[in-house]
């Protein structure tokens, strides 16, 4: 299968079930909402080293937020449901509560699993905090030097999907980066999906474990590392000299598939030889995303 001369490998991306929360941050203007969201989602590329994965889902216009201010929707995912509330408490407490003019709302109000994040954060108010029930939902008003920080008492938690991915195999680093940028641009319009790596792109894909260091749970993906082509079991086709990976997390499988479809199609451009994907033989993750099936679903009859 080829798209614009780019080979689509007959393989699949393998992803895992995670636990997800959606946080809606509003602020006086889009700049400060974006600032809070950017800070909150910093150092959240991979659960391997960051304990969670987070990213900006999309920016929200005034009419889509509860308080009528510009907002940003953030997704945060963890491997297990026990750690999700703690990650939220840490990050909201350190990055959103501290950011001027922000307020923080639950983006999954219908999720039955509730995490008492705002209720935990309220104690920052040292007894001066106050709650308000508005429209059947409780919010906490936490006094701060600027004025007040408003935060929802609970946030919804639902199952999510982490680790959707595809690899851009290109003739050179510039072509790989240009294709990755085009993919990210195309995928950023899709709700329910985040790209947790810097700018949505990872240059250091991993394999499970290590061939040399017993304490490493993930090490460089030597099979796709061009500089190791001659000394390892390389999976790189001839002419490929640089590979970049797009990693996706999302709220459900259809969202991941739709974003992958858009991203791969955008990445098929001059200088790209093939699109592949990372998997573990299908034995670890319950969610499989066969590239050709995903793209075939969008192809004209």
């Amino acid at each position, binding site marked *: 299968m080829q798209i614009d001369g780019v080979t689509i490998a007959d393989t699949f991306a393998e992803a895992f079930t995670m636990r997800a929360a959606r946080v809606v941050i509003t602020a006086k203007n889009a700049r400060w909402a974006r600032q809070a969201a950017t800070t909150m989602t910093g150092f959240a590329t991979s659960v391997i080293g960051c304990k969670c994965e987070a990213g900006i889902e999309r920016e929200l216009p005034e009419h889509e937020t*509860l*308080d*009528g*201010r510009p907002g940003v929707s953030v997704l945060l995912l963890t491997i297990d449901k026990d750690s999700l509330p703690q990650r939220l408490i840490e990050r909201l407490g350190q990055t959103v509560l501290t950011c001027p003019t922000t*307020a923080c709302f639950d983006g999954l109000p219908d999720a039955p699993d509730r995490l008492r994040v705002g209720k935990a954060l309220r104690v920052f108010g040292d007894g*001066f905090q*106050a*709650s*308000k*029930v*508005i*429209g059947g939902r409780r*919010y906490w*008003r936490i006094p701060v030097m600027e*004025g*007040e*920080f*408003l935060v929802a008492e609970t946030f919804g938690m639902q199952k999510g999907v982490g680790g959707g991915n595809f690899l851009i195999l290109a003739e050179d680093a510039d072509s790989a980066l240009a294709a990755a940028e085009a993919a990210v641009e195309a995928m950023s319009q899709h709700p329910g999906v985040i790209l947790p790596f810097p700018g949505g792109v990872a240059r250091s894909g991993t394999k499970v474990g290590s061939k040399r260091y017993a304490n490493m749970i993930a090490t460089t993906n030597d099979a796709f590392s061009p500089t190791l082509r001659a000394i390892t079991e390389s999976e790189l086709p001839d002419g490929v000299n640089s590979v970049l990976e797009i990693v996706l997390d999302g709220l459900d499988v259809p969202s991941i598939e739709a974003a992958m479809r858009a991203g791969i199609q955008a990445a098929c451009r001059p200088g790209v030889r093939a699109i592949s994907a990372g998997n573990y033989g299908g034995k670890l993750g319950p969610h499989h995303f066969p590239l050709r099936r995903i793209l075939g679903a969008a192809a004209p009859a």
Partner: protein
Amino acid sequence: MSDQVVLTLRAPLAHRLEADAIVPDRFPALGARAIAALPVWYSGRPAALGDFFTVTGERSERVLVQGDLAWAVGLGAGMVGGELVIEGAAGRDAGAAMAGGVIEIRGTAGDNAGGALPGASRGMTGGEIVIRGTAGVDTGARMRRGLIAVTGDAGQGTGRGMIAGTVVIFGAAGSGTGRWIKRGSIVSFGALVRPASFRYACTYRPPHIRLLLRYLATRHSLPVTESQIAGRYHRYSGDLAELGKGEILEWAGA
């Protein structure tokens, strides 16, 4: 089961009608005849609801009451859910001690709306009361939780002794408003004479007011302006003769 139960007053009331049987959350289990048979007291004598109202519909927790009910006492008192719309004036104790649901009064509300029943330490503990008109004295007195919005003026002692909750007054507030509150918010857009035991804290844009007023505008179609939603408010803490964790928020313009 019908979409709503409509109670239409047959003739104007001349005496006090104890109407605390009109509680929407009880109506889903009742047919029209059972609703008409609900006990009331009129001028101190026992009677049935059907003696005064025509009952249309059954088994619904949405109840519309039509007529001038200024003599009807305790409409929706103690309700825990459902929706009660009063198309006209309501007598005293409407929504007293309610714990949930919504009461909308499209007219004047009598005294003690959302307040406490005689001898009780707490007024309403949840739910919402929207009064599209003026409210009597002691509106929301001793309320523990919930929301009361008054589009017109509110009487003396509004929110008196509040434990928590929110009262929004779009008109003028009577004397003694907020006196002895422990927690809770009184939001004022009209003239208000603060008790001396409130102290000025700051002028700011409370983030929860944005949420609250937008909610009132969308859920209850109250005529809230953008300058009120995004406006500045003087915050007065009180009652300092009590716990002091309550507040009066006076709108200070855009």
